[in-house]
């Protein structure tokens, strides 16, 4: 089951990349996230983490592992829905 999901995911991903839709979606998502303040917020949190630890020793991996769950969880719900709707719409249209 897990491998099936993985396969499905990579098929969708590939289709989005090859049609160029992924770039458009990414650009749109980027703009929406900036507008919503998500990016600012995240940047601030990152700065705080770096300040709270030793700035010279913290690595990108540590930062990512700490921020990733927070970043994912804090994406505004309406943007999430919008993105899914768009992906879905594209997949349906490109099917036909």
């Amino acid at each position: 089951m897990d491998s099936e999901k993985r396969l499905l995911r990579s098929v969708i991903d590939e289709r989005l990349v090859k049609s160029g839709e992924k770039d458009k979606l990414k650009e749109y998502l980027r703009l929406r996230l900036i507008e919503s303040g998500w990016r600012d917020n995240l940047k601030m949190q990152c700065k705080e983490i770096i300040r709270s630890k030793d700035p010279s020793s913290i690595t990108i991996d540590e930062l990512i592992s700490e921020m990733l769950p927070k970043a994912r969880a804090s994406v505004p719900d309406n943007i999430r829905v919008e993105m899914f709707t768009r992906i879905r719409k594209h997949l349906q249209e490109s099917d036909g």
Partner: protein
Amino acid sequence: MSALGAALTPLAVHRASTDTASHGCPHLGAIKAAALAASASAGAAPGAAGAAAAATAASAAAQLFDSYRSCVRYSLMFRNRFQLHVHKKGKEFRAMVAVDDDEAVSANAAAVASAGGGSGGHAGMAAGASAQLLSTSSSASSLSSALLSTAASAPAGGAPPSAADGTLPALAHETPSGRKRKRSNASGVIGKIAGAADKLPTPSCGMCDEIMSSSRLHACLHCVYIGCWKDGHIQSHLQSQTHTFAMDFVHCNIYCSKCKDYVYDLDFERVLHSERSRIDIIISRIKEPNHRRTMHKEWTPSPEEMQLIRSNSTLQRCSGLRGLRNMGSTCFMNTILQTFIHNPLLRAHFLSDRHDRLMCTQKDSPCLACEMDDLFRQFYNGQTSPYGPTSFLYAMWMSQKHLAGYQQQDAHEFFISVLNEIHNNCTGRAQTANDVLSPCKCIIHQVFGGVLQSDVTCLKCGNVTTAWDPILDISLDIKPTSKLPKKPARKLAGAAAASAAAAQAAAVAAALASGLPPPPPPPWNAAYSPDDDPKSNEPYSLVECLEGFTLPEKLGPNQYTCASCGNTFQEATKQLSMKRLPPVLAIQLKVLSPVYVTNRAQGMWLKMMTHATQRFEHSATTSTKIDTFVRVPPELDMTPHTTRSVKLRAKLRASRKDSASRKIPLRGIAGFDTMTDGIPTYKYSLFAIVNHEGKIDTGHYKAFAKCRDQWFMFDDHSVTVTTQKTALESNGYMCFYIHDNAEYSPQAVVEASDVTSDSSES
């Protein structure tokens, strides 16, 4: 040596030879230092053994630069492949719509023709990695072989790849004099690039076939290997092969496996910059064959100049931020001055001493350009206490009599007055304003000047009358909130569809989320109801105002007399579009004055003539403030509002009406897709907002502006750090956007400290 010499700048030589360890990555520094030392010793004592050793050391560095360049090129081409691809599609596209305005069809046709058969030949291309990458990249395996052969040739041959480094195709080295002749050559190169971009393989991880996405692909800079970060494939590759450097495929950052972090190196940055501007030029050549770019001249200070700069300057922290005192209802002036101070182009102009108040010849009357110069001096002299711009105010009072007095004024009116005054005081301005398309060379028109095209179409005979108006800003109408629901039926349908889709999207979400680490599924999918539909309570946005601005407008029967068919009271439509967009786009949202709502085209001119009446209108309280919140986007794409795009859409609409049989898939075009149609893109970033709170005549102005990527709020004397979100949530009255792309054609390599670089957030 030649390859290395091209790559390493004098600054880098200095740095690499002195303190390699202290700057950036020591491992990278060591390679560069070794190469330098080797080449220096080889030059001094040309012995056989020394030369061989030098060659190996030099080749190690050159190879690294080289493979970085190839990877960057591949990455950029892949990410821009749709922009490049349009070039091929362009033929049918143009044949169908028969675009006739200012386009060089012949140049285009030549380019298109060469695109057709271009991918096979590689005569015009430069040697080395780029050529191999471009000409043989028809499949994934041959790309690998191309990369491999470049990588392998250096150590095996014992010499750096011949001149591979820094040899951009001819177009980068183009000189203005030989432009005509080289254009055909350049278009041939572009054709090949477009053809190659078409066949670029999709990069994927060598271990798990992850294609570029969330997995963060990295390319090894020592061999041909692309691996994903997420599952650790690139890290394990670097470790097992004892390779040191890899490049993030999307961001082109260099990762050092010994530092266990991304490293920053000026020389690699330069390679990245030159590649970026190269692809930028190629895209603009494809989309706008006739566009002239200004040649970028890099200034490298001579040792004497260096010495003078060092000995005569003190480093100041946080300069450029200063509050402005309110000298009696002068907040309208303070906000506008803050937007000038934080305008990167004005700042560059005045700080580089292009108008020096000590040298100014205008002695008898107040010179506003001198006042601006003085203002910049006050902001950058290290003082942080609030400054009272008294002399500026006095100069303004002297030159614009109606502003004299302690009344609250309209910020936008003041803005226009200042621009006109500075223009009047500038040297090098156009004496006659007879040609709107060859603009005045003064700083104001160079920064703010655009051209608005208005096409009036007679509905009877179809005759089009075109007029061009120079503009310094755009004034946009806001529809009051009550009028907002434009298409209620469609909107409702959309909402219903969205809610239905949301349920299904939840399923997709669950499927996607299961493959990803931790985030617990948020409650949005359970608690979702149609009322929360993002579209239905979406505030009115600036983009919609702009759409309204360039929408064809029906003129009343008494407003137009057709010159062609001679009908006096003929119905006609008027269509506005941007003939030329300025580097800095100032937008006024007409929240305060519905006086000239009906005359939006001449808004600015009318306003300047009628400011007396307008103020009368204000004092008679006939005008009301519109309180509709307008969402101001941080980034703005002006492409759909350019004349070319408006025309193209009109033609497509017309052709779709009368030709039922069409072969071209129009979906992308109908929805107006700036990524894939053949029009250059005009992207802008927000850098300042002026907002107005309170009533029409008693309100207060505040400004938000971005300074070194950080937003600040300027409320007269107080300056506070704020976030972009707060700035965007304020009720904007004027907003200022700057064009993302400085349209330079780089002579050598564009410096990292480009004028606009601090305004564009990556």
